[in-house]
């Protein structure tokens, strides 16, 4: 079974090591490849890209490495493709 890696238990997004298709089941592992659970993709996702592994509300923190890597610009359901279309940077956005 294909692998979706999360870098810490607090993460709400994971990285697919291979491309996945809508409806395909992936195992969720830690960085030592221990299986932590399974998840079904809600969309086609390119390899090395990310999916939400937990539901993230609009405006919610997107967490990877147990650190905030941005905010959800739309609700992201578990299994949904998570990338620049629904994640915005905080540190990389200018202030008015």
């Amino acid at each position, binding site marked *: 079974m294909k692998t979706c*890696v999360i870098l810490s238990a607090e993460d709400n997004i994971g*990285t697919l090591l291979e491309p996945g298709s809508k409806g395909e089941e992936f195992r969720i592992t830690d960085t030592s490849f221990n299986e932590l659970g399974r998840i079904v993709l809600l969309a086609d996702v390119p390899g090395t890209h990310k999916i939400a592994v937990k539901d993230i509300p609009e405006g919610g923190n997107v967490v*990877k*490495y147990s*650190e905030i890597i941005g905010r959800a610009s739309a609700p992201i359901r578990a299994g949904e493709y998570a990338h620049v279309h629904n*994640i915005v*940077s905080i540190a*990389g*956005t200018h202030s008015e």
Partner: protein
Amino acid sequence: MDFLGYERTNGTVGTRNYVLVLPTVNCINDVAYQLAAGVPGVKSIEHLTNCGHREDTPRTRRALAGMAKNPNIYAALFVGIGCEPIDPEELAEEVKAFGKPALGLSVKSVGDIEVLLEKGHAFLLEQQAAAEKCVRVPCDISNLFVGTKCGGSGSLSALSNNPAIGKAVDKLISLGGSAAFSETCETLGVEHILKRRMQEPADFEKFCAYTDRIKRDMNYHKIDLIGSEPTPGNIASGLSTIEEKSLGAIMKGGTTPIVEVLDFCEMPTRGHGLYFIDSSALGDAVLLSAMAAGSQVGIFSVASGLPARFGCLPSSSAGIETYPTIKVLGSYADRDQAKYFDAFVGDFLAEKISLDEAGDIVFNAILAAASGRPTYTEEHNKYHAALDFYKQGLVI
């Protein structure tokens, strides 16, 4: 643990043994090139800055002096015109005081370009002959200082190549060696993590001045980083934000405390360990900053995406000629490209090796390059980087 290096009379240890010609202004690049071409083995590096700078003058000067002081350089010749803000004779005096052969010549001081070529040629002939008498001897690994740079970053960078490099860096530092990471823009969003790792409170203030400058410029120009940090290539490889890229980038620095925060091309003063150096994220500037700080081996980290597929091309070549730079590939899917790299750690992602083993692959590649094994770039690339001085000030 030993590697085979060149012991310098001032106590430093080189991994390469070059006589180098450095132009102090772009106007004399061609003369520097001619001088180097006239003596087999001698290298010259193109200077990208003219004389029209003010705030950047100290940084440019420090870079030139640092390049000559680097242990991989046996001797250095500075050449200038005489009307630029950086005086080649003063630079040579500084390098001589550091304990190595140097000469500075300007057209103004010698009076004529033909005289400069004649005097420069004589110096290079003499120094190259002396350099060729140097032989590699076993040197303790604590003399080794590696600089790191990542390119072609993607989501895999944080899972494979950068943590493997971090393991190698931790091991080198545990053996008494040193390492540096830089790319100030790729610390945005992770300043709080680096703060915890800095030992001196003043270092964090120094560091914040670097990141504040980027934030000030973003706000002044009303620009967001997306599209540049991360780049379109990074985004295509799965990175979504600068925070995500930064978290992966800092993994190259391993896990030890940051013993010193350094300005661009500043030399460490507090002994061995891990340093952070202010620099742009551009490869030539990052590697120059490490080299001028005294690093003798570079590491160029590549994850997935296009850069993994153009391993033989210049823009990922890490091509400062006097600085052996190993290229590390982290993507398992790109394993057929491993022939273009000095170390391949992608097997970790296929669960064939542990992260410790991936770190050892990088560590062994560092040792081999340090002991004289030519890097892929040294053997195959025709591209030679120019001196990118990380200009920040007013361009006149």
